């Protein structure tokens, strides 16, 4: 799951020319570092919901919960568990 989300972040947010040197792993801050803009969290949330067949309430789709791939994985797993 981690690799799938990392790949989504790379394809959705990285620019081939400008971002080739930007490092990204599960603990890289996404929103606070400016890699992911908070305006597009709706797309990220939609991707997760569709891909993992879950429903994330808007209140839980916070900048904090989405700030690293590791925290996103936790969020998805919590909802997959029926939370």
């Amino acid at each position, binding site marked *: 799951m981690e690799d799938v989300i990392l790949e989504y972040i790379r394809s*959705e*947010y990285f*620019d081939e020319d*400008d971002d080739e*040197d*930007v490092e990204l792993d599960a603990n890289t801050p996404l929103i606070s*570092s*400016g890699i992911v*803009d908070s*305006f*597009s969290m*709706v*797309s990220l949330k*939609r991707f997760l919901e569709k891909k993992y067949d879950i429903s994330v309430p808007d209140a839980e789709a916070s900048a904090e919960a989405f700030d690293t791939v590791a925290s996103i994985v936790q969020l998805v797993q919590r909802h997959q568990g029926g939370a």
Partner: protein
Amino acid sequence: MAYPSSIREAHSSQLADIRGQGLYKEERYIHSPQSANIQVEYPPGAALKSVVNLCANNYLGLSSHPDVIQAAHAALDERGYGLSSVRFICGTQDIHRELEAALSTFLGTEDTILFPSCMDANAGVFEAFLGVEDVIISDRLVHASIVDGIRLCKAVTDTYKHANMKHLKQKLEEHQDKQVRLIVTDGVFSMDGDMAPLDEICSLADDYDAMVFVDDSHATGFIGKTGRGTPEHFGVLGRIDVITTTLGKALGGAAGGCVSGRNEVVELCRQRARPYLFSNTMAPPLVAGALKVLEILSGSTARRDKLEENTRFWRRGLTDAGFVVKQGESPIVPVMLYNAKLSQDMARDLFAEGIYVIGFFFPVVPQGQARIRTQLSADHDIPLLEKALESFKRVGEKHGILGLDKKGIIEKFGM
């Protein structure tokens, strides 16, 4: 007084952090009118230094134009200094409506509403005509004032990769369930100097039933053959639903901004846009100065033609000298340095050479994208730019970056 020492210390510590991160912004005191050559006191208390100004938004050199100053003087005498009112109480003079009409004619739009600044126009416009059932899809590099305006609006938000039409198309497809889809972009991007491909954006808007919003603050007056801005450049005059722009850059540089576009959107701003409803009207001298600017620009393209010539010379000169320059056609010409410290060191060395430029780095530009942004003006001339170019070459040589590409600069200085 409820400002105890603990709070004072906390604030001081925040300021120390800003300094520690190298993000502290300092003002440089200018002792002359805005121009190609200015007298600068920097650091505070230092003797005045005459420098070439390569960082003003004075694209057309109209900030200190004698006819503009004269028009402002006349309005000061005839209409007063200020109106002590918002527009809808007792702050609208005939000249305010005259300026709104002149802007509509110049921009080729249905109607226009003035704001105290374009920051205010962008802060108020989205909330005035969009709601929860709508979506705003914005370019990821739009100006901070647009970001703030979008935050104040209840519409769903989404973004697309900078100027990436494939990505925008995908986002438009994703949001077909919304009532209004508004594509939001800058006309010319302030930090990169490139233009949004408005012809392609308008085609996508047609295909996917979307409205188009353009902030043309860094284009109005000089981009396009007659200076009507990026819609003229891309042949889409009349197809942009909402344009915001400023009077604080090329159009005299004093203050003021506007929303220009579809009648109903402008009218909704007049009824609902909070920065319009709750801030003071534009002062008469500023209104009259802007009217004179539009008169000058409607009569001749000489200034924007000269700016275009200066821009071509400068872009070619920097590129031939071996700098990495962001490609484009606008008079915003970023010299890419990637490393934040290098951008500050070079700006300092250039100031010592008599060249006034500013180095920008994260968070003003993305991480690892530090640069010196140079901006041309019709007030510059080729001999002046030749001298400035020599200074750039000397400083570039000192830091050993001439001829290095992005990879080379990053290898030498880090990101």
